[in-house]
């Protein structure tokens, strides 16, 4: 059964952390890159983030995500390197292209910041099962309906793919061409999308009836089948993260 989650099931200290602590780490890591926008400092945060990926045994899994973002990173370097308004000091040139120190400095910070963002999100998403995450958030007061939507979307989108291929077959057997020129593909859009949308609406209606009959609208306090995981160092870790952020702010103000 394929679901849309990127979660990698492994046994590591990072996997056993409270999803909320990991969420806090994401927020703190990104905030720090703004509080102290020094390349060396951001590199330090990035180092910690990569370390977490390694400890979480998901470093390899994060590589495709990081590679994907390379394109974004590359364009950042070029744009900032060429066009930054503060560009004065010429660093080097490649033919007609001139790179300036100021632009590259800004680009470097941006690149590091993007890597921190993607890296810390990877820590969260690759080592946390969506169920655990949503359950934690519901216990912290998020609406169970929103939680349900998040979880069911992850499972139902792959199911929708199956429906789409059935619909494609149905229209092809009525002589519709689905391959070939751009025009053919555009022409095939409505005959395919119409039934896809209506089918999902229909199924959503049926599923909401089924959910109602399972007491989904109940005002009773919800309980949970899975026992709450114990997160022993929760307070300590959360405290350390917050302390570091505060230290960062103090440093910034003092300096």
């Amino acid at each position, binding site marked *: 059964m394929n679901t849309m989650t990127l979660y990698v099931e492994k046994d590591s200290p990072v996997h056993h952390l409270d999803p909320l602590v990991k969420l806090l780490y994401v927020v703190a890591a990104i905030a720090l890159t703004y509080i102290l926008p020094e390349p060396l400092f951001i590199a330090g945060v990035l180092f910690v983030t990569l370390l977490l990926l390694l400890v979480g045994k998901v470093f390899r899994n994060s590589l495709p995500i990081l590679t994907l973002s390379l394109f974004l990173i590359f364009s950042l370097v070029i744009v900032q390197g060429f066009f930054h308004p503060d560009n004065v000091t010429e660093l080097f040139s490649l033919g007609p292209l001139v790179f300036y120190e100021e632009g590259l400095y800004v680009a470097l910070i941006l690149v590091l910041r993007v890597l921190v963002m993607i890296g810390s999100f990877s820590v969260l998403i690759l080592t946390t099962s969506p169920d655990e995450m949503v359950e934690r958030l519901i216990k912290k007061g998020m609406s169970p309906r929103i939680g349900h939507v998040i979880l069911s979307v992850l499972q139902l989108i792959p199911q929708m793919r199956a*429906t789409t291929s*059935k*619909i494609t*077959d*149905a*229209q*092809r*057997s*009525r*002589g*519709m*061409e689905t391959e070939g020129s751009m025009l053919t593909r555009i022409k095939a859009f*409505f*005959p395919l*999308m*119409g*039934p896809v949308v*209506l*089918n999902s609406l*229909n199924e959503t209606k049926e599923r909401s009836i089924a959910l109602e009959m399972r007491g989904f609208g109940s005002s009773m306090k919800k309980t949970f089948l899975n026992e709450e995981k114990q997160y022993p160092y929760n307070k300590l870790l959360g405290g350390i993260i917050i302390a570091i952020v505060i230290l960062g702010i103090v440093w910034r103000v003092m300096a």
Partner: protein
Amino acid sequence: MNTFELKDVAFSYSLDIQIFDGLDLTFDSRTTAIVGQNGAGKTTLVKLMKGLLKPSKGTLLIDGDSIDKQTAAQLSRRVGLVFQNPNDQIFKTNVLEEVMFGPLNIGMSRNEAEKAAREALRKVDLESKAEDNPYDLSLSERKLIALSSILAMDTEMIIFDEPTMGQDFAGKEKIKAIIEELHTEGKLVLCILHDMDFAAEVFERTVVMNQGEIILDGPTRDVFSKKEVLEKAYLEQPYVTQIAHALGYDESFIHESELINFLNKND
């Protein structure tokens, strides 16, 4: 079309599960029902015949000529397939337009297509709904709209996938009449069914599939007399056959009237 032949056909979705391995099957002018559990390979068979899937080995032939090189769109002129769920195909907001979609795709002019569409709607008794929005109709009516959208393409062979599912008595009678009409027009009719009683009542020939293999194939009467083989495919005999059996008669009955006549004579 006189025959549709599958010769030594092999097919699999993934490397480890082979659906067909050297399947030989020929359809002719006899109306034919294919029965079997889900996963027996019925739908895969139909998709191969429509060119929606390509076999890894073997040939498909119409009247002795190979159709391996033809695309699904080209084959749609010759073989029509009525899908189980009408919601998988309906997308126009007008019944007539929906039924004309296929005919227009295979190159009929608007005039011809409209004529064919109206004729097809007449066959399913929904002429009066031609200007309605298909989504205002009931599910069983939409099934008939989907059916007529294939009838309108006037193909030489028509395949039905579970046409009786969700139909009440009146709906089943209508489908039975359409199948018989298509048969007298000289078209090849093939039908995937879960309803053994409908298979027994309507079709001349029945093919039983189980795990990608044909375990029974012959005149419907003979096929439904083989209780033990049917049970291997987890299928039951038609009710009439079961009743006759329970009364202690060994002859094979597949029509209500047969059994009644027989019992009347015996009295």
